[in-house]
């Protein structure tokens, strides 16, 4: 990944060092910048998507594979007009007590629906996107899951993406 704008900044410069300290075996060696690009239209005119590693999915869809020792490289489409009651969490690697009481703390779908209704955001993409964050093979993550979500986001006509790690 290479920076594509002059003012690209690393959001958390020490992030990789922290991860490698906690997970010996050189889990991540990436040291280049995360490319940031300017929004091409004002937010009230933009179509926003939301991408989350919280393991949120519509009820009745195949549960994320939280037991696999290497991870689950699939994602779920979450219709952006979903009601919280239609969604569930499959994830065992982060505390979900708060999210069980109010899903918006980890997956703020109702807040985004409200912001779109108020015109703060131009529109929401038809779908939001969710996966689980337990991935032990970053190259596969980049080649498959990240690319698949990126393609789906483009197909949904997003102008901007809000990414939220769990």
């Amino acid at each position, binding site marked *: 990944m290479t920076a594509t704008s002059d003012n690209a900044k690393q959001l958390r410069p020490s992030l990789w060092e922290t991860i490698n300290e*906690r*997970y*010996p*075996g*050189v*889990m*991540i060696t990436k040291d280049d910048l995360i490319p940031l690009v300017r929004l091409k239209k004002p937010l009230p005119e933009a179509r926003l998507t939301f991408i989350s590693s919280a*393991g949120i999915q519509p009820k009745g869809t195949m*549960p994320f594979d*939280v*037991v*696999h*020792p*290497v991870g689950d490289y699939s994602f779920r489409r979450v219709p952006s007009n979903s009601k919280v009651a239609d969604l569930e*969490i*499959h*994830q*065992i*690697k*982060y*505390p*979900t*007590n708060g999210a069980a009481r109010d899903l918006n703390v980890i997956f703020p779908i109702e807040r985004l629906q409200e912001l779109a209704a108020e015109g703060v955001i131009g529109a929401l993409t038809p779908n939001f996107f969710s996966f689980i964050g337990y991935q*032990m*093979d*970053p190259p*596969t993550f980049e080649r498959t899951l990240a690319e698949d979500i990126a393609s789906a986001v483009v197909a949904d006509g997003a102008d901007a993406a809000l990414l939220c790690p769990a």
Partner: protein
Amino acid sequence: MSLKYLKEAVISNDTEKLIRYVRLHLGDGNEAAGGKEIDKAWIEALKLLLDVPTTNREFIVRTLQQQDAATLAHLFFHLHFYFVQRSGEWIHDGNL
């Protein structure tokens, strides 16, 4: 630990690295807790068989014969979490 790290451990037959990884996975990053989780799953499975209940052995034999090893390995991890959950001592933060 990266997949590359684990595959190198397989090639060099470094079983300590491999089992440490399993314990870390099952213990959510806590190796000692992961070891206890393995024990917990086996104890729960053993308890269920002490009264020698009728089991569907045909299903077991058919599954072992018909499914590939990777699917069975995946099932093995599922069974671990199934028995841990069944024990009632769930240490994980979320849900399967």
